[in-house]
């Protein structure tokens, strides 16, 4: 199994969610996150006092998938999240040893 993590622009969440559902993903976890990459932050001005705000709001999506689906799913997310402008985010996957569905106790791919 693989854990795919995507950090994306908040307004692309619906597209990514729809694309994942169309692909057949049954569940995912979404967290409101903040961070920065090459995009950096933005500047705010209050009575002439300028502040640079480094962290920008992002959405973090986590999906557990079977190994065979992993690469294709990464592509699905990237395609749905892309706007072509700076700050589109990142997607990565890591191997997962085990997973358990809490209600039934099913293990491994059966738990997905």
């Amino acid at each position, binding site marked *: 199994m693989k854990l795919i993590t995507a950090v994306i622009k908040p307004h692309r969440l619906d597209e990514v969610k729809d694309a994942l559902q169309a692909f057949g993903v049954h569940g995912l976890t979404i*967290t*409101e996150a903040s961070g920065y990459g090459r995009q950096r932050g933005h500047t*705010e*001005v*209050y*009575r*002439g*006092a*300028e*502040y640079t705000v480094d962290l920008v709001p992002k959405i973090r999506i986590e999906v557990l998938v079977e190994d065979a689906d992993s690469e294709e799913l990464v592509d699905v997310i990237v395609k749905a999240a892309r706007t072509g402008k700076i700050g589109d985010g990142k997607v990565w996957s890591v191997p997962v040893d085990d997973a358990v569905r809490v209600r039934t106790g099913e293990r491994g791919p059966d738990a997905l």
Partner: protein
Amino acid sequence: MPPGILTLAADKVTLSPANTGFMLICSALVMIMTPGLAFFYGGMVRVKSVLNMLMMSFISLGIVTILWVLYGFGLAFGTDSGGFIGWDGNFAGLSGIGLTQLWGVSTIPIYVFAVFQLMFAVITPALISGALADRVKFTAWALFIALWVTVVYFPVAHWVWADGGWLFKLGVIDFAGGTAVHINAGAAALGVILVVGKRVGFKKDPMRPHSLPLVMLGAGLLWFGWFGFNAGSWLGNDDGVGAVAFVNTQVATAAAMLGWLAYEKLRHGSFTTLGAASGAVAGLVAITPACGAVSPLGAIAVGVIAGVLCAMAVNLKYKLGYDDSLDVIGVHLVGGVVGSLLIGFFATGGVQSKAKGLFYGGGFEQLGKQTVGVVCVLLYSLVVSYVLAKVIDLVMGFRVGEDEEVAGIDQASHAETAYDFTGAGGGTVGRLGEALTKKVNA
């Protein structure tokens, strides 16, 4: 204040129900300015100190009201002694005043004048609190208010507005409080921060306003209440001067808001909500002394000049290194000085008095008088406020501990948190916060 009422024929001076009702409404309008100021300031501080900021204004409604009734009204508006202070035993406790006894040569009862002026006395020390955000002991602040109104506000109100007050007799024009309220509070703010010092992290940590909608709400309430503050200061509507004051208040405020916004668009690139709110308040401050002396076109000039100059002045604190946290000096002192001095240029001689400014052929005479008023009130308030703050600091300490300031003065001073975010949304923070908050005295 109403020298113009002196021009009414003596037989006309009877109690006017219309003026009395109008003045009671104006008193309520001025009262709402203090909560408005609390929101204006409260929105500008960080989440951890908004309650303290609100309370610094609200406590003035408590303390100053009582002191005003006990002796403040007597000191400010009792029988004059040498132009510097008044006293009238009948005013002590407001207990020796007849129900229909008229104030001076006005058409309103003394009770109405006393409560109208009370609201001015309440908001003036509250204005100072903006310079002291996040860091002063609540008890020290409460003591400061009590001492400050007693030795600074009550006497200065006497100088400027009482018939025998020395600045009033000199001919200094201050329709509704450019010197007595705004220069007075702004100079006091400077005196106190020289003692109290900077916030922890000043110029280093981000100190963004936590709620600009609250700032806008407060500015809106101030703008609304200010019509009572200015138009009411003529104590009636027998000769139309109060109406001119009302119009000028609106006009100058609009112009100042536009002036501030234009300046910051050119200088910093954006029209900000904080700029709009600040510009409006700067305009209200500047037109306060001048609203009965200038024409509506003059009010536009006063507003634009005040809006731009105050927008420039608020950045000085970073250059000079004084932590005037919410720009009491930059807005109220500078705005008050600008408005008071511009009377010397823009007074038409055709509204509240015959005194003409430089641009209306009056020469430098009125400008000279205005300068005397500005300088004397500024210096007196600055010096006495500094001394009062120093004494309080030596006796009990003016500041909270650094740990309390960093953790947040709301919890240290008031045992409260402004906003409860626990249980909002499904995130871990909300759930954990809820799980870790327990009521102990069920």
